[in-house]
């Protein structure tokens, strides 16, 4: 299933102090596809997701070994500019976290960091990103209003739009729908269909139906190890590992 890989991870080990949180992870993530990470709570899905754009740099006492290659370049190599890395690899978090400013300024926040000042250009990016996150029509008349006044589902799509505004190549989403109602959830799932046409999407989810619905490939993690990683259909129909089978049939987790 691997023609080319957008992200290649080789022998990745991560320690939080003494806690060996990720063990010898090897994975290749396809471009322009949705890859889902599943697994029981605490198995390291979020931790692994955060190694892909170095959000772990914010945590004290983390030690990382191994390589994470984005388009064949190691993102942990010395001299890597995390500003550029995070522009290429954007992130959407579990809790919607729009900034306490207007919807417009939220979306323009990223482009402004990367030096875009021109008002007309920004207007364009804002509209395009909001459309990309399927929320433009709902907010087009209130762009100057505070984003905190939106519903949770709308806020999460604002956060997706905000991530899209810097034209990322990869979009990491950590349980983006776990704080949302079913209607907002299905809106975001529909959105993923569109997103993968332009972006490489990696999503963490606790909801196996969601993985089946949205993901092309699925990776199953357990206790810091990558147990199995295959096309979603295959993984769920013919799990190769006993532990995967136990998990997806609900025997533990």
């Amino acid at each position, binding site marked *: 299933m691997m023609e080319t890989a957008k992200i290649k991870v080789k022998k990745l080990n991560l320690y939080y102090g003494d806690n060996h949180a990720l063990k010898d992870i090897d994975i290749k993530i396809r471009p322009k596809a949705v890859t889902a990470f599943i697994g029981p709570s605490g198995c390291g899905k979020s931790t692994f997701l955060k190694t892909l*754009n170095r*959000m772990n740099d*914010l945590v*004290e006492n983390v030690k990382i070994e191994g390589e994470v290659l984005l388009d064949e370049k190691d993102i942990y190599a010395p001299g890597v500019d*995390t*500003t*550029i*890395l*995070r*522009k290429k690899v*954007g*992130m959407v*978090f579990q*809790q919607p*976290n*729009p*900034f*306490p*400013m*207007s919807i417009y300024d939220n979306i323009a*926040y*990223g482009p402004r*960091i*990367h030096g875009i000042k021109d008002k007309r250009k920004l207007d364009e990016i804002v509209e395009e990103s909001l459309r990309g996150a399927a929320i433009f029509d709902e907010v087009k008349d209130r762009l*100057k*209003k*505070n984003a*905190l*006044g939106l519903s949770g589902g709308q806020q999460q799509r604002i*956060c997706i739009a*905000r*991530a899209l505004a*810097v034209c990322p190549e990869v979009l990491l989403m950590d349980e983006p729908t776990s704080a949302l109602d079913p209607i907002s959830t299905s809106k975001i799932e529909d959105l993923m269909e569109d997103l993968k046409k332009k972006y490489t999407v990696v999503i963490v989810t606790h909801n196996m139906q969601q993985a089946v619905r949205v993901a092309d490939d699925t990776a199953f993690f357990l206790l810091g190890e990558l147990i199995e990683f295959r096309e979603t259909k295959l993984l769920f129909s013919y799990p190769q590992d006993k532990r995967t089978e136990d998990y997806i049939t609900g025997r533990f987790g």
Partner: protein
Amino acid sequence: MNDNRDLSFQWNRRKINDVILYALIYICASLSVVILVGIIAYVFIRGVGSVNIGFLTSVTSVLKGTVGIAGNIVNTVLIIFLTMILATPIGVGAAIYLNEYAKPGKLVSLIEFATETLSGIPSIIFGLFGMMFFGQTLGMGYSLITGSLTLILMVLPLITRNTQEALKTVPDGYRQGAVGLGAGKWHTIRTILLPCSMPGIITGVILAIGRIVGESAALLFTAGSAKALPKTLTGIFSKIFESGGTMTVQLYLSATSEGDFDTAFAIAVVLLILVFLINIGTKKLTKKYDVTREK
């Protein structure tokens, strides 16, 4: 199991206790209001008659036969300005450093403990220190700048602590969101953390101004009590290096050594109005800068 009691109200011990407790709370609450209103009324009745344009715009002079606090007003404004223009950036900067840059640990707790202790020290001790260190050792004598430097030490903890509290309440999600978009640390601080903390910073600044307005002990030792007005506009700058008493210091002097209670109460009225205005201003400002408010 059915509860067979009917629903009609019946007194029991718990309900009686409730009533007694409520009565006590109401008595305490009204007492504090009555006392506050009483003090304000008393001060106004004694002082308001002496407050007029002349009182606010002239300087007390035996030769001219005038009574006024214009000089003290100018001194007060100058001291507030001098103190805050230095204390605000230092205090906010320290808070940012402690919260966002310093690694949590012994040193940070030590600094936080020191700041807390500092804010509990009686102001007269600051005055004593300021007089000896700034006034004598550094040779600045009795002057507004000596007073201001002393006051900076006093109000720094207020600003730092309020800013720190405000920074602590900024959700981590905002920091992660910004960093996730590629923002550097300082950019995040400037565009997200400081705007979010603005109400807290303003509260700290206003509390500090309140403390300055109300201070007498520390200033008597350091800034002195001169009441003359600067003669020229540029005199305002040289005034910084000369002695000058604030309104509160003058109030103290009027009520003690000068035995002029009319002036003392008149100043008290002016100060009360000032405090009232500062409070309203704070409310307005913190509301205006509340970034979470739907606009």
